[in-house]
């Protein structure tokens, strides 16, 4: 891999953000709205139950973690969509840039942009709603890393779908986190779900993260077996997502999709 070429992919996104600060707004605004909405709901529920349960930590913390995964995913896919929207595929892929360098550049961009959202979320959650991350402890950090990798995995999968099915399939990508969220038990234990949904949930690494969060809040400490399961699954999915992207890229090279998308808008 050539670091200069990876840097070029990141620099392109930096120029876009610097040239049009409006692009920063969705990275911060939506998560801020979520924090406000769920922050007040948590506060209301805490008052209603006489503070017998820490709703702020359970609900607001869960929303924050889920939004973090969503932002990481959208950071990767949005960077890719910028090339779709500006019909830049031909310009990029007729250069020495490799698909691995391109993907790495997208992932770095996704990480950097999602950090902005994370900072906004943490600021609001701690200063306005008094969410203290000390209640989770450092044990949650490796689980958060699993969420981070989950976001990257979904981002790569999303870009593969758009590369395979064309610019118009972009609308399939945005709702992916919303479709997954009921299965991973963001707000409730998997046991709440019907068996078929539980089976799907157990195959998704974020389920173990939210379970671990609830374990910690209940004073039971983290379940390291769950962490091992989540880590194993996400490594498999991450490798699979990259292989899928590489396969789709080879398909696009065989069928001429890259040249075609350069002449096609998301109509």
């Amino acid at each position: 891999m050539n670091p200069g070429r990876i840097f070029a992919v990141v620099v392109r996104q930096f120029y876009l953000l610097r040239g049009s600060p409006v692009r920063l707004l969705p990275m911060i605004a939506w998560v801020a709205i979520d924090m406000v909405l769920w922050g007040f709901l948590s506060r209301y529920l805490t008052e209603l139950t006489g503070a017998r349960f820490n709703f702020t930590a359970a609900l607001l913390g869960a929303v924050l973690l889920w939004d973090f995964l969503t932002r990481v995913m959208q950071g990767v896919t949005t960077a890719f969509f910028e090339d779709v929207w500006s019909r830049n595929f031909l310009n990029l892929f007729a250069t020495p840039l490799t698909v691995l360098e391109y993907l790495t550049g997208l992932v770095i961009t996704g990480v950097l942009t999602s950090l902005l959202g994370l900072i906004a979320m943490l600021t609001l959650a701690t200063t306005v709603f008094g969410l203290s991350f000390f209640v989770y402890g450092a044990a949650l950090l490796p689980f958060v890393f699993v969420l981070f990798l989950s976001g990257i995995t979904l981002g790569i999968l999303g870009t593969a779908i758009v590369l395979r099915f064309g610019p118009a399939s972009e609308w399939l990508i945005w709702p992916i986190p919303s479709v997954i969220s009921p299965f991973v038990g963001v707000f409730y234990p998997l046991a709440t779900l019907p068996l078929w949904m539980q089976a799907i949930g157990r195959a998704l690494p974020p389920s173990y993260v939210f379970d671990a969060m609830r374990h910690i809040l209940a004073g039971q400490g983290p379940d390291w077996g769950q962490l091992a399961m989540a880590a194993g699954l996400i490594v498999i999915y991450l490798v699979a997502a990259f292989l899928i992207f590489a396969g789709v890229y080879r398909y696009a090279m065989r069928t001429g999709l890259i040249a075609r998308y350069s002449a096609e808008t998301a109509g």
Partner: protein
Amino acid sequence: MTDAPVLTVSNLRKTFGDFVAVDGVSFEVRPGEIVGLVGPNGAGKTTTISMVLGVLRPSTGEVRINGVDLFKQRGKALCHTNFGTAYAPLPGNLTVEQNLRVFGLIYGVKKLQARIEQLLADYDLLHHRKTKAGLLSSGEQTRVTLAKAMLNHPKLLLLDEPTASIDPATARDIRTRIVAAAAADRCGVLWTSHNMYEVSEVCDRVLFLSRGKILMQGEPEALVREHGAATLEDLFIEVAHESLTDGSHAA
């Protein structure tokens, strides 16, 4: 200085299902040579160019750029090329200078800032360096595309209708710049165009493509003479008409 070909295309064939888009095409481009690739719509020009650009895999055949097999050592081969087409403008939401920097980084251009300054001056873009590329006129955008195409001093330059959609004066200016740059760097050029006047003016050699095959090739004036046509355009129309009606033409 070597005269080994900068581009060698051997028995290139591309099929999409039962449809044969390119059928056993072979040709070479030598350093400093400008080769025109012409033919009617659907002849296989864009498919051929896409394969030489490395964005479309051939069904069979080989493309060598500066002696390097494009589909075995893609990165190494594409370091020696660049391209410009009116149909793939650079991202309009980046400024001229930002576009040149991004692509300069991708091509690993040494002393990039100095190279950018030189190209901005060469292509009369100094006043537009901070302008978003999408806000420029067609002619200015073509100049930006060409500046990008020259960033890495390519040994092979692929130009797909570089003067499409621009006025005759600007088109002549652009042709002059390309010919001068090709001569200065002894860069081989593969140039597709539907403008036969342009092809006659700039190309050392012309390849007539029809139904995925090269029907004839040679120097523009010699081809016109040999086939008893008044101009290259007349010859083009004759060949295109014959290939459409009977599907064959003797070279």
